[in-house]
């Protein structure tokens, strides 16, 4: 039972299992991605173990064309990644009420192994990215448009 979608039905193969919980949410490992508006590239990462818990996520490359980082080998191993083909990157968005003011966390993207359906929030260690990059002001070279810290 979820607070945003009511009773949510999903297939076993849609379940994404986090190898380690999101920072601050270590107990919760099982999620599904819900895409309520097919024509808009934002989704909800809905926790299956806590119906109230859902994160809004998006493909950061759609908004930040220059977004670039290296996935450390240890993270690749933890995620069981042997090739580039099975990787999906999602950024968590912070939204208060107005979606236009949404910001993306580019410092700690969610990396998904789409073949095994495993995921992890990977905190980038040597990076200029922050936890709040404005979507509305995004575009090429948007790292300069960071808000807050």
């Amino acid at each position, binding site marked *: 039972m979820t*607070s*945003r*979608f009511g009773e949510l039905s999903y297939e076993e193969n849609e379940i994404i299992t986090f*190898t*380690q919980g*999101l*920072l*601050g*949410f270590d107990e919760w490992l099982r999620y599904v991605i819900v895409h*309520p*508006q097919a*024509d*808009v*590239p*934002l989704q909800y990462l809905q926790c299956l173990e806590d119906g*109230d*818990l*859902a*994160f*809004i996520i998006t493909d950061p490359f*759609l*908004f930040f064309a220059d977004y670039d980082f290296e996935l450390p080998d*240890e*993270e690749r*191993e*933890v995620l069981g990644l042997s090739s580039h083909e099975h990787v999906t990157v999602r950024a*968590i*968005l*912070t*939204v*208060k*009420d*107005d*979606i*236009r003011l*949404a910001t993306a*966390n580019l*410092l*700690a993207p969610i990396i998904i192994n789409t073949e095994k359906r495993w995921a992890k*929030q990977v*905190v980038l*260690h040597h990076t200029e990215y*922050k*936890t*709040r990059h404005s*979507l*509305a002001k995004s575009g090429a070279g948007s790292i300069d448009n960071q808000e807050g*810290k």
Partner: protein
Amino acid sequence: MLVLSRKKGESIIISDDIEIVVVSTEGDTVKVGIRAPKHVQIFRKEIYAAVKESNSEAASSPQKLLDFGALFPKGDIVE
């Protein structure tokens, strides 16, 4: 808190499988090397706090479906 003094090049072992090495010191800055099993997560403290806080904020988006379309003025959908 256990406080130990180390010189450059010296190490500290935590449990059986984590090693902290003082790699170098330059003025105020200490370069620390950490060897740990790959499942052990390691962060600069302020980064860890920032991500935790950001996740927490993100988790408290409204408990209802938002109209994502408002982010894309009509005819401007990015795919």
